[in-house]
């Protein structure tokens, strides 16, 4: 019944752009085209119930779209908010001391208003470097084993462990570091090299961090290896290359950009890790000279001093500057690795 009414209405209203036709067709989900027929749409809705429901549904769809757009934009803008907020709060310290001075001075005397970040930057670099040196070869070999060598059965057993390891919270890694790594270094490793070490050292931080970034590196590199076409491997094998030769000359070479991306991502993760390194690094504000020296990475500095932050002038600004420093470096590293990875993905899709 309604249909026939609609049809006759349509015949009478022969507008050239056919807007009313769209308004009557409930199977058209595209909301933007609805703009073409506001007047006639309203006219029909007065005596057509179906039409009313349809318009309501479209309105709901549009409203939700707007709301979602706002949420999306705001949540992406968090990135900008963080940058601006941290910068705004580090302006006072940047006014007092120049950027170069802040980064290269090693005098850290908050009570005298002297903030030199050099020891903390070096602490971070030492810990990060050690963790990468330990983790990268191990993870590379593990990922190669998982993708190239392991039988399916072992693969199935192995992959959950990587996920389980990635689920363990940082503070547990810290506890493990204190309970296991520190005594290990103190009693078994350090005595071979230096006279005395408490165990709380950049080496301990590096080892704990290395274990923390295992899952990240393994999962990314495994993904990258999977994107390499099987044909390439088959071609190499059919020419008489051994499996290792194929792996080295085909798989690894092809996967190099992906490995670099994983490396960069792992560095940025190690850079920002806080509580685990805070617990095992010894937190001595001096530049470490050997792996058995204690260090004081930037995130540990921020976390350790939040209590005094408000009582000493400029201290809060200095800590916010440290956070800004971390944020900027990690942001850059992340963007670099994500661009490389998304390029790889696109290449695979093409």
């Amino acid at each position: 019944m309604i249909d026939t009414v609609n049809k006759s209405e349509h015949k009478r209203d022969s507008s050239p752009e056919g807007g009313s036709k769209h308004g009557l067709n409930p199977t058209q989900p595209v909301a933007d085209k609805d703009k073409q027929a506001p007047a006639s749409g309203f006219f029909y809705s007065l005596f057509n119930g179906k039409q009313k429901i349809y318009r309501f549904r479209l309105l709901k769809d549009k409203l939700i779209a707007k709301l979602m757009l706002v949420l999306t934009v705001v949540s992406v803008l968090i990135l900008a908010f963080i940058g601006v907020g941290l910068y705004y709060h580090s302006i006072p310290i940047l006014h007092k001391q120049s950027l170069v001075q802040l980064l290269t001075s090693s005098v850290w005397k908050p009570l005298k208003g002297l903030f030199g970040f050099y020891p903390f930057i070096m602490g971070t670099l030492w810990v990060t470097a050690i963790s990468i040196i330990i983790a990268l070869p191990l993870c590379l070999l593990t990922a190669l084993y998982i993708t190239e060598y392991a039988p399916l059965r072992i693969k199935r057993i192995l992959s959950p462990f990587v996920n389980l390891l990635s689920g363990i919270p940082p503070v547990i890694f810290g506890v493990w570091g204190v309970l296991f790594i520190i005594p290990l270094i103190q009693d078994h490793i350090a005595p071979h090299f230096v006279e005395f070490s408490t165990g709380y050292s950049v080496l301990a931080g590096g080892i704990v961090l290395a274990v923390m970034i295992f899952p990240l590196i393994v999962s990314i590199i495994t993904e990258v290896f999977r994107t390499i076409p099987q044909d390439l491997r088959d071609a190499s094998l059919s020419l008489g290359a051994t499996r290792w030769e194929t792996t080295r000359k085909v798989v690894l070479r092809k996967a190099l950009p992906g490995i670099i991306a994983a490396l960069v991502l792992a560095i940025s993760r190690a850079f920002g890790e806080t509580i685990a390194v805070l617990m095992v690094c010894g937190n001595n504000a001096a530049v470490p000279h050997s792996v058995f020296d204690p260090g004081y990475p930037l995130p540990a500095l921020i976390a350790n001093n939040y209590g005094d932050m408000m009582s000493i002038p400029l201290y809060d600004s200095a800590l916010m500057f440290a956070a800004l420093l971390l944020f900027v470096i990690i942001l850059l590293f992340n963007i670099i690795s994500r661009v490389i990875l998304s390029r790889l993905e696109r290449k695979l899709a093409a």
Partner: protein
Amino acid sequence: MKRRKFEELFFRLLMVLATILVAGSFFLIVGTIFYKGVPYMNLDMITKTPGGGFYIGKEGGILNAIVGSLYIAGGATILGLLISIPVAIFINMYMDGKTFLANTLRMAFDVLFGIPSIVYGAFGFLIMVYFGLRASLLGGTIAVTLLVIPILVRTLDEVIRTVPSELRDATLSLGSTRWETAKVVLRQIRPGLFTAILLSFGRAIGDVASVLFTAGFSDNIPTSLHEPAATLPLAIFFQLSSPVEEVQGRGYASALVLTIVVLIITVLSEVFIKKFFKHKI
């Protein structure tokens, strides 16, 4: 020829050793925590709040921290879902999910995911200063929400992308609006939704650096949003830095509690992922 065979064997051996080390590190960590934590574990630990003199070795438990952590992680996950479900739907259903803009958005969330929690903590602290809040349950929840949004968005996005486009096309061709299609898709990805929730909950409950500035610490179970709240990881950290042996031991037991909770969450999320990809290889 012999050299090549040897090389092959050598590297295979190296790979197996590396794999054992990487997978074994998990057992090493969990084993250490259990070995040290179990002797100090008792029922009081998880059923009582700290009594007087708890921090010099007298009786009490860490119920305050357990409840505080559950409040913060639960609140943050719910708030995070309210924001990230619309975002994931918007990227995939309202925008064409394959365009440059959509991929850029994804990358932005990946980058947000990479921002360390200490930076979220510092930023959360700035927000609190701006609004004149003190360290409280509310502040902690806000900071952790910021932390889990990227995790939720990216997980949901991955899950929504696995929904076959035929399903969407079919609902659209039957006359549904995009929002109605989104509801169909949301029903379809329910196991994936649980995975996202568990992942974010697991991350939220274990994170220290973001709640350090924002949630504060208290020996009581918080009764309002403006009261400071203890969190489990922070309780572990404080107990471990105590010189009293008994308190340190409780720290190990607290670590054991957190490890068990997180392992259960991770295993559950694995199960849900398996369930979700059951029809795939």
